[in-house]
């Protein structure tokens, strides 16, 4: 199975971290993965997208060319561009706390989850990306949530931020549950 993913958000929302965690979880599951990014003279601010290609075999084309089958839009400003980058039959996960103006696009399924509000309920808005990632892996079956949890724990431990592990794991589980409810609707 091959997945082409686009994780988009505004600066600080952790879109790049979603991409990175996805990649690290792939190593646990012995999948091949490529992450691409644009690079320019500035590194901070504005919108950003982390592109990830996942495959059980060696990856040919490493570029996501407006043909993502799994995409995330964490903010209003990047929503339209992300929607345009999803192929027919693909799914776009939308942070409905931030994206207020929905656009229908035939052939593209949109899953709306208020992850920023859910994160605030957990006590830290910054884990919105992890809630969303939990929802993405759960709804798509792309990766196991446990593999993401493992990658999260590794990263936070390496950065000596062990105290943040709990809230992130809670956030991941909350996303998994939210996706299950959404899929059952």
């Amino acid at each position, binding site marked *: 199975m091959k997945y082409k993913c686009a994780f988009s958000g505004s600066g600080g929302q952790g879109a790049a971290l979603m991409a990175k965690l996805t990649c690290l979880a792939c190593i646990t599951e012995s999948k091949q993965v490529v992450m691409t990014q644009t*690079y320019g003279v500035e590194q901070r601010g504005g919108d950003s997208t982390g592109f990830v290609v996942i495959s059980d075999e060696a990856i040919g084309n490493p570029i996501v060319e407006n043909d993502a089958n799994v995409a995330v839009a964490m903010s209003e400003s990047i929503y339209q561009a992300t929607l345009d980058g999803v192929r027919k039959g693909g799914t776009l996960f939308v942070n409905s706390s931030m994206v207020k103006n929905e656009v229908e696009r035939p052939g593209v399924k949109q899953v709306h989850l208020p992850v920023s509000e859910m994160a605030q309920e957990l006590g830290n808005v910054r884990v919105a990306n992890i809630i969303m990632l939990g929802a993405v892996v759960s709804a798509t079956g792309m990766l196991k949530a446990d593999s993401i949890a493992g990658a999260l724990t590794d990263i936070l431990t390496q950065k000596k931020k062990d105290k943040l592990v709990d809230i992130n794991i809670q956030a991941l589980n909350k996303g998994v549950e939210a996706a299950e409810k959404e899929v059952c609707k």
Partner: protein
Amino acid sequence: MKETLFLKNTEAFAESMIRCGIRGHFAYPITPATDVMKYTARKLPEVGGRMVQMESELAVSNALAGYACAGKLGATSTSGPGMTLMQEAIGFMAAGELPCIMLDAMRVGPGDGDIIGAQSTYYQATRGGAHGDYRVIVLAPSCGQEIVELMPVGIKLSLTYRNPVLFVVDGVTCQMTETTTFDDPYDYTADFDTSDWSYTGADDHSKRFLLTGSYTHEQGYEMNERMRRKYEEITEKEQRWEQVEVDDAEVLVVAFGIHGRMCKDLVANFRNEGKRVGFIRPISLWPFPNKAFENIPSSVKSILVVEMNHGQMVDDVRLAVNGRVPVHFLGKTGGDIPMCTLAEMSCEVSKLLEGE
């Protein structure tokens, strides 16, 4: 034991050179190659090596030559304008038959150009920027895993033939992060005895031992003839390429690096539709894999060369094909997306299949 890491491809270059025994890395920062020296600065001291940041690329290339004179295989990593500045020393190393490993994280030129990735260094890499009848062995990996697999190959080539070896990787591929699997560390440089030609102290050599790029008329002739024989041997023995679905192909795509990698999907997509498309991906750019084109089947009615430039390798393909089949070109360079997309490549192949 094999180990899978998630690294930027520049870091994969750094990690593989360390694992393969290189202990001296000379560099000067330049996007998109700087990650290599950041990585080696941290990691080389752990294994008794050193990354030395010089004051310029000129200094880097001459330090690399000096390190080689001492019988050590060193490495450098740079990009476009930096590579241009190193050409004089590379010519000297070729003349002095001094080995080294280099990476050009190719970016758009000419001049300082742009920091975005490109394949516009093909001419410079394969023809050389210094004067004289010299050659640099050029390897073009298409992904992180191939960088790792070609590192031992490059080291062996450089020390076997006493010649500079240049890895060329477009800046887009350099900045990608991917899963890369490494073998246990093994010092490939230790398999080669350099003591009969290197400076290892006065006691080991006769008084007039000389390593030089400067010759008298007669010596110059002999040196060039010896080099000619060496280059002929390399050309005969060291051509490398990958070919897929060539045997019955109607259209053959030829591409190296990232476009070569994209051909895997391109050809699979066409074959799924029952269309006969194949590809040849040169891995050694010098020596160019002419052998891959010697026996292209009669089914091939056209060849499409795709590059991240305005047509450089296409010259070598035309020389190899020698007029037997029409050779077409598709390429672009620069901009936010500095390369042809798979969709654009597919469109061009479709036109050729229809005989347009």
